[in-house]
Each structure stands twice: as structure tokens, then as C-alpha cells.
């Protein structure tokens, strides 16, 4: 939540440097005093407007920083404060909240349920994010290889999936997987030798999370596909032609040329996807409404929600949220450093 890194104020001003450059000095030898005065004035005006131009981004960034500070900074600080106090329903109704150091954290870390949920969430997020990425890359490559008509069709379909409100699409998804009247069971049941009539997808935690992963992947593939497609369009034609002339096969080109060139895009998309899938809440919550909200079906988001608004243990929920924040920062940190290193090389 720190403010973005601002460029240092005291860099030498390009206009001033220009004044002392040999060309500038040489030119003003032949100037009349009037011309010189006019030139100096113009240079000063240019400096002023340049300085203003350099200050402008700082002014423009203020609203964003202010919104972040109020919208995210304040709740984060409040969450840190709450996580170090005893804070339940009594405190919500105005009774004093005793400071308890890290009691909420130690309680959480010694709870086997929390560890189970944490590990489940990490596995879920990496599996879902990886599959999303693979399918997204496949769609992007497909889009760059088909004609305009099929590509537009594909893009419109992806956009529709992307822009669908979560509650609306979740309604359809839970209907699809409904045990009694769902299309999925109906179709699978028609395959000879497969008995899926009334199979309850949401009863076993493993199939519950398989369904959840399918939904989450379906919702996030469009973003990945479009980002990577945008990256693919930036690969110069000449490089591809040259490699084709050198006799590289299609899969060799994909593996040795295309993927390395769009690696930065893939890395940032994977980072975003991991963070999103770690924090996934609405899809799981809505699927729990159709199935079960027992702890075996929880990921971090729903676990924290249940701990806080359900069991009214606001302090414990805050502590859990702070830990999720730390995990997110750790994952991002690793990625951001990797990205920076690659940029530098």
C-alpha cells in the first residue's frame, strides 16, 4: 500500500542541459540581444511548462493514492488492529476490546482445520490457475491462426463469458450440475455403461472442488486468452518468417520462439490468476448454497467469512485475513522480483 515510487525531483533538467550544449552555445553567438532575450524567455517558459508537465503526473496520481489509502489502507489498518485484540459481538456493541498480542494468530495456527483449509486453497489456486493458463494460451494461439470470422466468433464468446455477472452464471452452473435435473448428469447417463442418474456432484469434497474449478476456470480463461493474444500480436512477422525458412516446425516455433517472447505476459497473467484464485469467494459461496457449507468445502474466503460474520469471531477472521494478505504478498514478491530481474537482463 506504499505510494508509487516517484521520480526524484533533482534530476538535471533537459532544457538546462540543452542551453550549455555546444550547439546551443554556438548558435547564440550570432544572435542579436533581442533575439537572445526572446530565446532566454522562450527557454524559461519551456522550463516552466516542462516542470509543470513533470509535476502533472504527481497531481494525477493523488486521487488514486487517496482512494487506495481510504478504501484499502484504512480497512487494512483496522484489520491489523482487530487481529491483535479480542473482538467479538460484545465489542461490536461497544464493549472494550482487550489487547491480546498474537493470541488470535497462535490460536489459528494451532487449529488443524485452518491448516487444512489453507493447504486446500493453495492447491486449488495453483491447479485452477495453471489449467486456466494452459487453456488460455491454447485459445490465444488458436485465435492467431484462424481466419477473421472464426476469430471474431471466438472473441465474442469469450467476452460474453467474461462479462457474465457471477450470480447469473452461477445459477446456470448449479442447474447444469443439479443432481436430479441437471444437464450434465442427463448427458453422461446416456453414455452406455455410465450410471450418473442423480449423481450428486456437490456431496463429495473432491467432486465439489472439481466443479468449482471448472467454473472458476471458465470465468477466467477469457482474460488470459485476450492478454496472451495481445502478446502474440506483438511478435514480429520477420522473426516467424526467418524461423520458418530455417526449417523450424510449428511446435518448435511455439516452444522456442513464441513462448519465450511472450514470457513476461504469461508471468504477469499467472501472477494475477494465482492471486484471484487464492481469494476466490463468490463462486465457492454460491456453490455451497447449492451443496454444503461444511468446513470440508471451504476455501480461505468462505472460511474467513464463516469465522467472522457467521461465528462472530471478528478478531480470528481478521487474523486469518492478515495471513492471506501475507501469503499474497509473498507470492507476488517472488513474481515481481523475477519480472524485475528479467527486465534488467
Amino acid at each position, binding site marked *: 500500500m506504499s505510494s508509487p515510487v516517484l521520480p526524484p525531483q533533482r534530476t538535471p533538467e533537459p532544457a538546462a542541459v540543452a542551453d550549455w550544449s555546444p550547439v546551443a552555445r554556438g548558435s547564440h553567438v550570432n544572435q542579436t540581444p533581442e533575439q537572445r532575450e526572446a530565446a532566454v524567455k522562450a527557454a524559461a517558459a519551456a522550463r516552466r511548462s516542462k516542470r509543470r508537465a513533470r509535476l502533472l503526473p504527481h497531481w494525477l496520481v493523488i486521487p488514486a493514492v487517496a482512494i487506495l489509502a481510504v478504501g484499502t489502507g484504512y480497512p487494512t489498518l483496522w484489520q491489523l488492529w482487530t487481529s491483535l485484540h479480542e473482538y467479538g459481538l460484545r465489542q461490536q456493541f461497544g464493549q472494550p476490546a482487550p489487547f491480546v498480542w498474537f493470541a488470535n494468530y497462535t490460536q489459528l495456527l494451532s487449529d488443524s482445520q485452518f491448516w487444512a483449509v489453507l493447504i486446500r486453497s493453495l492447491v486449488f489456486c495453483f491447479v485452477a490457475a495453471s489449467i486456466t493458463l494452459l487453456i488460455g494460451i491454447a485459445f490465444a494461439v488458436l485465435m492467431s491462426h484462424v481466419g477473421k470470422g472464426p476469430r471474431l466468433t471466438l472473441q465474442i464468446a469469450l467476452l460474453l463469458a467474461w462479462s457474465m455477472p457471477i450470480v447469473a452464471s452461477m*445459477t446456470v452452473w448449479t442447474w447444469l450440475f443439479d443432481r436430479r435435473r441437471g444437464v450434465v448428469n442427463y448427458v453422461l447417463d446416456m453414455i452406455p455403461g455410465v450410471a450418473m442418474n442423480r449423481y450428486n456432484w456437490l456431496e463429495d469434497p473432491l467432486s465439489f472442488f472439481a466443479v468449482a474449478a471448472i467454473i472458476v476456470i471458465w470465468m477466467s480463461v477469457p482474460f488470459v486468452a485476450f492478454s496472451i493474444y495481445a502478446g502474440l500480436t506483438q511478435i514480429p512477422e520477420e522473426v516467424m518468417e526467418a524461423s520458418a525458412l530455417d526449417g523450424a516446425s510449428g511446435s518448435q516455433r511455439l516452444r522456442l520462439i513464441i513462448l519465450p517472447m511472450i514470457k513476461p505476459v504469461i508471468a504477469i497473467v499467472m501472477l494475477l490468476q494465482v492471486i484471484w484464485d487464492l481469494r476466490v469467494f463468490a463462486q465457492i459461496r454460491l456453490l455451497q448454497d447449492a451443496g454444503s457449507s461444511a*468446513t470440508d468445502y471451504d476455501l480461505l474466503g468462505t472460511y474467513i467469512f464463516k469465522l467472522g460474520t457467521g461465528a462472530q469471531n471478528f478478531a480470528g477472521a481478521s487474523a486469518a485475513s492478515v495471513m492471506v494478505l501475507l501469503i499474497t504478498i509473498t507470492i507476488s514478491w517472488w513474481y515481481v522480483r523475477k519480472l524485475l530481474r528479467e527486465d534488467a537482463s
Partner: protein
Amino acid sequence: MKKKLSAVAAATAAALVLAGCTSGDTNESVDPSEDASAAAGANITLWLMGGDTPEALREYLRTEYADATGGTLTIEEQGWGDALSSLTTALPDSDNTPDVVEIGNTWSPTFTTVGAFSDISDMYQELGGDSLLQSFVEVGKVDGANYAMPYYFGSRYNFYRKDIYEAAGVAVPTTLGEFSEAAAALTTSSMSGFYIGGSDWRNGISWIFANGGELAEVQDGQWVSTLSSPNSVKGLEMLQDLYSTSSLAPATESDSTPWVNINDNESTGAPEAATIIAPSWASCCIGDPIELEDGGVGTQWNDDVFGVFVLPGVNGGAAPVFAGGSNIAISAASKNQEAARVLMRIIFSETYQTMLAENGLGPANLDYTAALGDNQFAAALIASAADSKLTPAAPGWAAVEGSGLLEEFFGKVAAGGDVATLAAEYDALINPLLNG
């Protein structure tokens, strides 16, 4: 999903209404007779839980309140599922709190012990005194002072398919053991003899109660979860057995809308269940399919096909079922205390109490139960309510319900887990929540 959507809509509506709400008269008044004048013109908000209160009753409250004060009464409906979190966030905030609020009866201790409601002991006699349903009055008390009053009570009894029972030659059971046998005999591969969701603890606890068990008890001044007591385990094993032989419902299903299973399924023309247990007002939605005026499909009760009976006890009679119902209270943070008291008087008036009873809701004031009528539903309601039980009046009970631990525990029992082991495990999880 529909429930979720309407909750979202209600929350949105609430935000809109609250934004336009004027803060009323803040004068403190102790003398009840001054309330009406002090409340003149005050606009207040009433939160009702779920759709249990019919529209005609809501309209009556709005009209009467406007007549009494000249102000506007806004009624906002909260979905049961999200109500706890809405209450937790809205009640402490004097700018956003509802002035009068209906709460699940079992949540009363949680909110009264933290001081969420105003002390209305001085109104107790005026609102009905000893004629009020005492178990609900008790659950709304702290240190002898009244904070939450009964709003209405319901009960749970069985609805069954007369046609299916007759065709199979099964008689209506009179003991809990016979009930299990009858349900098992009626079960086929596509129809449950007794449809009960595995995680449906609100109905499942009847088996604990019927076998003399309790959910929690006070031991040495502290609330202790007693799922693993011998009697509770006995009841849970009976329920587990019943579930495995007679219910095709998923172990993960809670008590959402069990009555859809006893009506004929639109696609198969046969019901999913021969017997269900449901709150008394579910009779609204059970019956033969009929076409409604707006083209939709409704139901019409048919005495030849459907019947009701009270869940029998272990040795006959009625089993103690969960005493459903609501309490009602004034938010301590409300700026319109006087106006809220005016509304409370309207709610506890003879007319309104009678209207509740006429709509199948057990009236808070037992003087008016006659208005429930003498049909089979009223008879089953009164018979099942007579032995009904409340969940423990522990300060942390709402947290126990909110945590979802009971759904989880009953689901695991239904899935075939070892009852004694699970009960001990969940006792340990529930204990820290019980004492608030």
C-alpha cells in the same frame, strides 16, 4: 438461489430507504403514555425475517402506525440466511439500525446479553404480561429485565402422502420406532419413505430431544455442549439409521424447502417423498398442482392425497420438536424509541394477534390461540407445540448457528460416521462458542 437474490434486492432496497430516512425525535421519554405524542411524525423501520409474515399483516401495521403517529413505517424483509450478519452490522449503528426488529427466537440471548436491545420491562404487563408465551419471554430476558418479546411461534410436524401410505398398506405410526419402520417400508429407489436432508439439524434434533438428550446444558455455571451424552448419542444413532434406510436426500442438504419433495414432481408425476417434516406454515405450499391466474403453477391442498401427523415420541404421544418462531425487540441504538414502542403496542394488540393466528402463526399472546381455528393444521400445530423445545439459551448460541457446525455435524452423522466419535469432536468445537 432465489432466496439469495431476494436478499440482495432487500439489501439494496434497505440501502435506498435508509438513505432517505430522516432521523426522528430524540427526546427521551419514560412514561409510556407520552410515547404517541413524542413519536408524532417519526418515520421508523421494522425488520421482518423471511416471508413468514403475510402481506395483509404488514399492510395493517403500516396503516395503524400511520394513524397513530402520522409517520411512515417502512417494513424491510431480511432473508433468514443472511440475517445474522445484517443484524450484527446494523444494530450497533444508530444511523442504520432498524427501530424494531424480528429475530429468530434462539438468537435472543446472543443479542440481549451484549445490550443490542432496549429494556422494555415497563411495557411487559401492557403487552400481554403472563398471557405471553413464557418460554419465548424467558429467552428474551437478562437479569430479570425484558428485552425481547415473543412475536409468533410455529412448530414442526409431518406431512404425508395418504395415497401412498394406503396403497402400501402402511398405517400412520404412533411411536418413533414405528415411524422408522413405516418410512423404511415405503422407501423405493426413487422415493424416500421419509425425506430429511442429512444436514437438516433443526429437524434432526427432534430425535435427540425424543430420546431425552439435550444440545447443551449448564454445568458449574458454564454452558457445555452435550451432543456426546448417552441420550443424545442414542437419538443420533436412531436418526442415522432412519436416514440410511429411508432418505434419498443428500447428506449435505439442510432444511431449505423440504415440501417440494412431497408434491408430485413435474417431470415424473410422482413425489420424491412419502413423508416429510416441515414448519407448520409449509401447508401453504403442499398439494395438487394447479394453474394460477398468472400462468404459473401453484398448489391446492387435497385431503384425499395429503395428510398431517405429529412426529410421535419414543413411547407414543408427541416427540419434542424444535419450537420455531421469532422474538421481537426494539434496537437500543434506535433514535426513535417512543415511536418503536407505539409499534410494539400495535403488534401486541388483540386485532394483530388474532390476525397472526388466523394466518397459521402461533400468536405471542396465548389468549388468542383460538383464532388458529380447529382444522387439522391447527390441531397438529397445537399438539406438536405443546411438547416443543427451544435450543439452548446460551449467550453464544447465535454464533453456534452462524458457524455452520451443526449442519456439518449432522451431515457427517448422516454420511455414516461413528456417532460417538463425531459427537465428542463437535462438542469440543462448539464449547468455545457457547458462552459468548
